């Protein structure tokens, strides 16, 4: 019997066209994805990078798993339908009386559906395989085919996942007899799995997350998360214990769920209800055998007017709205969604363990979480509502009433809108409740309502109009849903095919962004223009919906078209034409603006431009140029007009030994003018790169000077495009607005494979610091060394404008406010202008003026930032040298301009998000006080960048960023203690290890780094902190201060990392010289681990602790490939019987912290013993005597070293 049903089911699927549609889509889609990742579309769009093997096991795993997630949406319509079909066709009333057992029935149904699903999943894999090898893909980035990998993924992850999600969906549909319930279950599962991810995102929960992640992704990630690029490219997927546990766990859940279905399933006419109160049975008898009734219907008035129909529309929409929201499973998902919202609110936006204050814009960002749910619900319910009367078999009655078609479909539209409003309202309620829960009472209800009910809503409305049309067109709600999802997801892939412009992608457009300082700013208008454009498109779909709306029983699509034709009235034609013209007109206007009025460049064209730049101008890179020695500029900012104009002059000197006759000038906008005080000619004019070449009539002799005067103007903003950097409140413009000199290599393509394609030589990125010819420029400016600076900046009367320097004079003239700033010492050619309606906090101590210019509502952390400035200045003056200014200023700017702070001479523009609105928790458990530490970092730049500036060679950022990070850590440690230090270091270690896995080019050692953030910040802070631990803070600072003394404010040739490391080496004792090599000269990682530990109480009441631990270290080359020796055959090796493979290590003569911890009176762990031990072999066992009863031991217990697995460094006793 099992076979009969099973075969019948299989035949059923094989006859259904939908099966072939699904199969085709899940075959073609993976081909597109894998072939585009393997560079198939490089000819029409940008070139895919070259270091990443497209079909490495880990990449395949990610693609394969992602496809399964998309496929989950189909589960209800395959696995759910298998069982639900019998209910829907009421076949079950007959079938359930047939003589087969429920074992046969259930297993046959479930397994047949599972076979179908597994087959489609297999097609995904096949699609991927074909895609990678598709003719035209880039063979350099496609590795050999490992069929084993596909089977590994298929059998270990995807099949069990299909079984798990299949059995859940099967159970839901069996018990509720509703496919919708199945869909919502899938959405719910996705939400829950996202929620779990959020909650278990911390380091401490990594194991739990690995086991509880239903897809198995986290389990695999448990092993692969720190894989270097080389390892990602070549390693096969691991199969470790954690993965096994994860799979077994979820497999047993699947079995339990199916067992549950098996146990409670009955061959029954009615769905199982899980209601707890049992209704009392009642005997029903008929009593209507009576005689005749006189029929006398009351006289009522009928109204078929437009207005009445409008009222009816509203009333009908209520009925449909109730149908949506009273569905228990819908309510259930909404509850889960609210939890997801809450968790998003509490986990997002935390830096170093410190939360951000729950500002309203931040609450509103969480709307994303609900976004997908709203969209899918809209797609699904658009179908359920459009077909609702037909599904309920009530359409013949409804369609026979004198209600116009538009009332019917508009009522569906309104019902969907009501659902969206309800869900959006939930976002607001959750946000407000979360704010109250966080003790934050600055509610901005108006802001909530505006963003949710207008900005977000329009986006959903546009989707709804399309969904309504598609669902009207296809007449099968699930197919409609699938088509909508395909459109929704597929639009993203258009770019890969070279369709980049938003006007060709339904409902796409620029996003708005909000800042407390500047509101929605310019992003707002542009957002609305695009939304209006797509709304017009949506209205066209609405008109088509009207034409295609099904009334009665058309027998074919042809007939529907005939009916549609007959519905076309003059008004329809008129309305449609007007909207169509408006749509195309607006579309063309945008197109014109973006393509014709202002040349738009596709990603590919941009790539070509970079090639042209290099090929045309690279030859001038080393031609001598005069250098700027003084800047005097007037900058006028117009916050209301959103524009600026500036003029000024640069004094320039030929510092070279040769005469100069050509000047290479980069200028910012076409509206700039340039003039020199010597006669000259413009010999080459290039408005594509904004790069002019002038020839001086008389050569500029060595030592001669030249004055360049210029004007610069912001480009005009248009209604569609924003060109000016000026905003109405919170302008931040740096000296990039002014002309500069010489060829800039920043535009060159960096990827060598891409360069090869364009016949460019491999790119060195930056010269090596040992290249003595490359030390002529700092990494900040290539046309100046140290300059005198003076400026007058003006703004509107209600704003304050700031630039580096000391305020000489402030005045108001013609309704504008002027500020005259002048710097009294030499600075780098690096300055900026800020203007906004600021409040100012001022303090003075030790002859230094401290100022914070802030947005009025953002006064939360001013004291912390003030303290950060003072402490960092004090620390740096003590440790290195005197502060060169008498003033330090922090200036807030809007988050829409970025989330960073940047240190200019005595002036630090500081984004509103990275300190001003931090919610610092000073308790022991709290995270890092980053308003304090970021401020300290920026102040440290006044030394490490503004006194000591490296040449523009590899490793330059170590001299600025790594050392600023070091100062910030040291003042943080002094203020908040070493406990907070661990939070910081652990975070830095994890971020370093994670970020390096995404490296696309190469990872050099710290002193030769290419400027990657994860090296200069994270690794830099770890290393300088560890070095100060090894050689002592004082001797480190002594070495640094000697170095500062030698190189500060130096003229070229500039200093390099090599010079600094020499100072450090000198301060390091012989026994620790290896540290310099490990930390600065190579990429070296430890893998330290406590294996075993035990203790005994000694006779004199002390404790003898025995610790067995492993120490090993290895080097990575710049691709992340491991090596265990510098000299051949010198590596160490260790293996026991239990170990699968031997542990290898570089030779060791290392000093490693060994720690023993006890529990103090407060119940907290405290250090009983902490000392560096000399380690010479991998496996070590030592005995330590401590006074207190030990509870935990550790090797490098404070994670000072860079350790690939920092979690096994401690072990509890």
């Amino acid at each position: 019997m099992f076979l009969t049903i099973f075969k019948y089911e299989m035949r059923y699927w094989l006859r259904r066209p939908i099966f072939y549609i699904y199969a085709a889509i899940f075959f073609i889609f993976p081909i597109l994805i894998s072939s585009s990742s393997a560079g198939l579309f490089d000819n029409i769009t940008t070139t895919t990078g070259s270091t990443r093997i497209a079909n490495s096991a880990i990449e395949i795993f990610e693609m394969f798993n992602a496809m399964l997630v998309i496929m989950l949406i189909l589960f209800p319509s395959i696995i759910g339908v298998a069982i639900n079909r019998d209910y829907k066709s009421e076949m079950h009333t007959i079938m359930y009386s047939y003589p087969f057992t429920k074992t046969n029935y259930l297993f046959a149904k479930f397994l047949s559906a599972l076979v179908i699903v597994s087959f489609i999943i297999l097609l995904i894999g096949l699609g991927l395989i074909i895609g990678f090898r598709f003719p035209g893909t880039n063979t350099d980035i496609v590795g050999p085919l490992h069929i084993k990998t596909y089977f590994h993924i298929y059998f270990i992850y995807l099949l069990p996942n299909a079984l798990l999600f299949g059995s859940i969906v099967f159970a839901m549909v069996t018990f509720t007899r509703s496919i919708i319930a199945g869909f919502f279950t899938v959405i719910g599962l996705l939400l829950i799995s996202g929620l779990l991810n959020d909650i278990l995102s911390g380091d401490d929960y990594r194991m739990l997350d690995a086991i509880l992640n239903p897809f198995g992704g986290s389990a695999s990630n448990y092993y692969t998360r720190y894989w270097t690029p080389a390892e990602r490219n070549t390693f096969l997927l691991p199969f470790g214990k954690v993965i096994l546990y994860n799979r077994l766990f979820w497999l047993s859940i699947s079995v339990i769920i199916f067992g549950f279905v098996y146990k409670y399933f009955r061959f029954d006419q009615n769905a199982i209800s899980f209601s707890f109160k049992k209704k009392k049975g009642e005997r029903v008898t008929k009593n209507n055998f009576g005689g005749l009734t006189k029929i006398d219907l009351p006289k009522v008035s009928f109204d078929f007017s437009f207005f009445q129909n409008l009222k009816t529309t509203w009333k009908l929409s209520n009925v449909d709205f109730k149908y949506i929201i009273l569905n228990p499973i819908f309510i259930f998902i909404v509850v889960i969604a609210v939890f997801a919202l809450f968790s998003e609110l509490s986990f997002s936006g935390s830096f170093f363990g410190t939360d951000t204050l729950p500002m309203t814009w931040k609450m509103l960002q969480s709307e994303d979480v609900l976004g997908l749910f709203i969209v899918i619900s809209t797609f699904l319910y658009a179908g359920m509502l459009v077909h609702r009367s037909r599904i309920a078999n009530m359409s013949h009655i409804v369609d026979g009433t004198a209600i116009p078609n538009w009332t019917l479909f508009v009522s569906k539209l309104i019902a969907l809108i009501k659902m969206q409003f309800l869900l959006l309202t939930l976002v607001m309620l959750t946000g407000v409740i979360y704010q109250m829960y966080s003790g934050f009472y600055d509610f901005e209800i108006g802001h909530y309502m505006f963003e949710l009910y207008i900005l977000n809503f329009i986006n959903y409305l546009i989707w709804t109009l399309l969904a309504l049309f598609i669902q009207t067109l296809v007449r099968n709600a699930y197919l409609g849903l699938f088509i909508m999802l395909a459109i929704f997801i597929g639009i993203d892939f258009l770019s890969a095919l070279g369709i980049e412009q938003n006007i060709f992608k339904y409902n796409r457009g620029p996003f708005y962004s909000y800042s407390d300082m500047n509101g929605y700013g310019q992003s707002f208008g542009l957002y609305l223009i695009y939304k209006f454009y797509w709304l017009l498109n949506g209205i066209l779909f609405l008109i088509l919906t009207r034409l295609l709306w099904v009334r009665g029983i058309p027998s074919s699509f042809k007939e529907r078209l005939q009916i549609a034709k007959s519905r076309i009235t003059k008004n329809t034609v008129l309305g449609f034409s007007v909207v169509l013209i408006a749509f195309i007109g607006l579309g063309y206007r945008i197109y014109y603006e973006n393509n014709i009025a202002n040349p738009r460049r596709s990603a590919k064209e941009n790539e070509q431009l970079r090639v042209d730049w290099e090929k045309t101008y690279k030859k001038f890179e080393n031609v001598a140029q005069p250098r700027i020695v003084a800047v005097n500029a007037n900058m006028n900012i117009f916050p209301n007009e959103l524009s600026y104009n500036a003029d000024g002059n640069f004094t320039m000197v030929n510092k070279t030994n040769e005469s100069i006759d050509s000047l290479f000038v980069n200028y910012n906008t076409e509206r700039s003018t340039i003039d020199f005080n010597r006669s000259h000619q413009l010999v080459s004019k290039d408005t594509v790169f904004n790069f002019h070449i002038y020839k001086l009539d008389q050569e500029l002799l060595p030592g001669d000077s030249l004055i360049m005067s210029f004007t610069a103007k912001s480009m005009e903003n248009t209604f569609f495009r924003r060109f000016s950097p000026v905003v109405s409140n919170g302008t931040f413009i740096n000296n990039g607005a002014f002309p500069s000199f010489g060829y800039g290599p920043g535009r060159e393509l960096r990827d060598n494979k891409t360069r090869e394609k364009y016949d460019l030589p491999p790119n060195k990125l930056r010269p090596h610091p040992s290249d003595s010819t490359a030390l002529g420029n700092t990494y900040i400016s290539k046309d100046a060394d140290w300059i005198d600076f003076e400026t007058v900046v003006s703004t509107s009367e209600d704003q304050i404008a700031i630039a580096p320097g000391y305020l000489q004079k402030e005045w108001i003239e013609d309704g504008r406010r002027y500020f005259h700033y002048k710097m009294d010492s030499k600075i780098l050619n690096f300055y900026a202008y800020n203007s906004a309606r600021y409040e100012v906090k001022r303090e003075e101590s030790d002859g230094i003026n401290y100022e914070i210019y802030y947005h009025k509502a953002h006064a939360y952390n001013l004291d912390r930032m003030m303290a950060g400035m003072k402490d960092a200045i004090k620390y740096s003056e003590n440790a290195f040298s005197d502060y060169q200014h008498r003033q330090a200023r922090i200036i807030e700017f809007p988050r829409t301009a970025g989330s960073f702070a940047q240190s200019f001479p005595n002036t630090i523009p500081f984004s509103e998000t990275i300190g001003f609105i931090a919610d610092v928790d000073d308790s022991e458990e709290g995270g890092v006080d980053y308003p304090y530490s970021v401020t300290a970092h920026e102040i440290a730049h006044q030394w490490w960048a503004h006194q000591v500036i490296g040449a523009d060679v590899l490793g330059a950022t170590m001299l600025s960023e790594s050392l600023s990070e070091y100062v910030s850590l040291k003042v943080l440690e002094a203020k908040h203690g070493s406990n907070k230090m661990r939070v910081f270091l652990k975070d830095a270690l994890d971020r370093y290890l994670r970020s390096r896995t995404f490296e696309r080019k190469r990872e050099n050692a710290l002193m030769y780094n290419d400027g990657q953030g994860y090296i200069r910040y994270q690794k830099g802070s770890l290393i300088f902190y560890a070095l100060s631990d090894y050689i002592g803070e004082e001797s480190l600072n002594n070495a640094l201060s000697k170095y500062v003394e030698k190189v500060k404010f130096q003229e070229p040739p500039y200093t390099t990392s090599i010079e600094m490391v020499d100072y450090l080496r000198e301060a390091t004792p012989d026994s620790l010289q290896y540290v310099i090599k490990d930390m600065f000269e190579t990429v070296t990682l430890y893998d330290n681990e406590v294996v075993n530990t035990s203790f005994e109480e000694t006779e004199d009441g002390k404790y003898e602790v025995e610790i067995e631990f492993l120490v090993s270290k290895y080097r990575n080359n710049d691709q992340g490939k491991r090596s265990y020796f510098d000299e051949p055959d010198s590596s160490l090796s260790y293996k026991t019987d239990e170990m699968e493979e031997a542990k290898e290590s570089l030779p060791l003569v290392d000093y490693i912290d060994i720690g023993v911890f006890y529990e103090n009176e407060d119940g907290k762990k405290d250090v009983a013993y902490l000392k560096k031990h000399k380690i010479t072999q991998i496996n070590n066992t030592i005995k330590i005597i401590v006074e207190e009863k030990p509870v935990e031991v550790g090797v490098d217990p404070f994670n000072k070293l860079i350790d690939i697995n920092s979690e096994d460094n401690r072990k509890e006793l």
Partner: protein
Amino acid sequence: MKLTINNLTKTYKNGVKAIDNLNIEIGTGMFGLLGPNGAGKSSLMRTIATLQSPDSGSIFFNDINVLEDKMALRKVLGYLPQSFGVYPKMSAEKLLDYFATLKGVKSKEDRKKLIDEVLEITNLYEVRKKSVSGYSGGMKQRFGIAQLLLNNPKLIIVDEPTAGLDPAERHRFLNILREVGTNCTVIFSTHIVEDVKELCNEMAILNGGRILKHTTPMDATNELEGQIWTKTIERSELDGIEANYNLLSSNYNQDNSLNVRVYSAEQPSDDFITTDPQLDDVYFIALKEDQIETV
């Protein structure tokens, strides 16, 4: 009040000609449309009820051109489909309010008055708060009548409403329909001859998409006066009778003998006796003649 159908034709995608050049005129009162399953009754009724478009032909109700101006007809139309469902978990009261709104009843008070009345008429008042999806077959059909009345229709179309009802329900249903139909046009399709006999003042027999006979129940039986003959036979004789005579029907008696009815202008043989014509006879004769024609 008059419904006029001219040259109506409808062919389905699968080639079935559901309505075949049909012409008919229907006046006020109860009109029974009699035909076997698959005769095209539902197709015809759905076409009149504006739910389906014919390939050709015209339909007029009074001066309403039904195919051109569907809305005008829908305003005066009461339609009860052959089988219908309702939105689950909605009470009769709520559903009727929904339909009354659809049918253009303007004010809330009016809707309430009207709904109470139709619930009273159909004897559903007691169960008005119960959800209709849980109603028994008879109650559901009565609910169908209730919704149909809401726009005070002039043209009522009910498609096989008595199928599956118990005798009492059927009786009650027909009574209501009769009451409703006193001063409007009611088209009522059925394959049960009894229904027509009890209810209709006019009738037509439909098969294969054509009207085989358009008459009144009275005229139809009168026409056959003296041409229907009956006889009691053994089961084994049936084949002989069928071969030789125009056999209309045969019914078992309790002793396993058969009563046969034969249509013949003359007495077929001596052992046949004349009997009163029944409406069934009219029906069978019409179907049989149609069959011969088709063959």
